């Protein structure tokens, strides 16, 4: 039990310590200059509005459509684009459209599984290198700056178990084993997908990555990687599980 006097001393010491460390003006400028892309509406609300718009459009078009829709139950919620990898179709969340992995906003995270674009701040060396698997990478982006990238590696013979190979937080994705990673990345702000100039300011970003090991026959496996900058782990697992069961 902490005495009142000790509480008071703690408050005083912490307050003095905090007061003596104001936010430096340059740091304030850096923090406030960045565009954080605040969302405008709730995702659920956006999906609901989109669904309502679809329904309203159907009503305007024909009454028959309304009857058919009523017979078949509620219309499906608005969903995003589909990323196709081999025989699997991964439905993206509402508002996500297919885009090139090399284009903003995906370019910053698309390389992360290969760690070529992302690097520690102030490190030397080229900003961009040619990633080995880029050709097979698919990406979808939302208007608010969110991005999801998906990549299916080539089949290979595993040298170790998925648990040892992946590390991270092990998860179950449908009937497959996977691992979740939450990464903090330093990316360099670019304009129109081109590398920023020398001395560009690194911006800290976060990435959630899901690795899933899939059987590929003849004792081989292939790894599916889905990464997103603004989706939670459970949301990624859901996308992956639905796609793998399709």
């Amino acid at each position, binding site marked *: 039990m902490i005495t009142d006097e000790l*509480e008071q001393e703690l408050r005083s010491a912490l307050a003095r310590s*905090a007061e003596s*460390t104001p936010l430096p003006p340059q740091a304030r400028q*850096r923090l406030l200059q960045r565009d954080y892309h605040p969302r*405008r509406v709730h995702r659920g609300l956006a999906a609901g509005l989109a669904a309502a718009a679809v329904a309203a459009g159907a009503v305007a078009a024909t009454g028959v459509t309304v009857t058919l829709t009523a017979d078949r139950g509620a219309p499906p919620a608005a969903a995003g684009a589909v990323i196709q990898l081999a025989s699997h179709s991964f439905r993206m969340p509402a508002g996500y459209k297919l885009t090139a992995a090399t284009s903003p906003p995906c370019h910053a995270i698309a390389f992360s599984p290969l760690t070529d674009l992302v690097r520690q701040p102030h490190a030397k060396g080229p900003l961009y290198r040619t990633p080995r698997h880029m050709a097979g990478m698919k990406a979808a982006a939302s208007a608010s700056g969110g991005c999801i990238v998906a990549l299916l590696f080539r089949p290979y013979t595993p040298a170790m178990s998925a648990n040892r190979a992946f590390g991270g937080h092990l998860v179950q994705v449908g009937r497959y084993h996977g691992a979740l990673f939450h990464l903090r990345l330093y990316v360099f702000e670019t304009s129109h997908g081109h590398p920023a100039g020398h001395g560009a300011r690194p911006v800290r970003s*976060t990435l959630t990555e899901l690795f899933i090991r899939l059987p590929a026959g003849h004792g081989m496996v292939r790894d599916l990687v889905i990464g997103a900058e603004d989706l939670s782990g459970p949301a990624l697992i859901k996308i992956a599980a639905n796609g793998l069961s399709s």
Partner: protein
Amino acid sequence: MQRVTGTASRRRFEAFAAAAADTLFRAGYLMTGDASEAEDLVQETFIRVARRWPRVAAMEHPVAYARRILINLALDGAQRRSRHRAELEAPGGQPELADESATRALQGIDDLAEFRWALARLPPRERAVLVLRYWADLPVAEVAAALGCSAGTVKSTASRGAARLAGILARDEGPAGQPAASATTKKGTS
């Protein structure tokens, strides 16, 4: 119409960020003892708040919500770091002082650098409890909610953290490994 709404929302977020930056930075600094780490934490907190902005904007205390995010980010970061390197000192390795001695140790602080140094040596969770409870002045129940533990755990962690903090301060070490003058003074007063 939609554009107007988006612009207004963005402006509200910018106003929030401008108002919260200093408080969040101080919280980050207390949690990490490092200005650049604190800045990183604030930036990441803003990113997360921006993703949930419509919900956060509707809250009564958005800054308190952001501070909770920042503290948990700091704890996550500390956990990650601890997986890669051994703790400098095993938990419980510090001598714990009785409340009276702890109070004297804290009263003897005349060097804030020494206090920060001692604070940074606390286990992250104890540090988080002290910062939320005695700097942010949150009730025990809110600290418990922020850290995902029970009120009893908050109280015991706070007590343990305060004692450990005082124990560190009472040792004959300073931030640079030099004998701390105030620690010597404290010894004289006890």
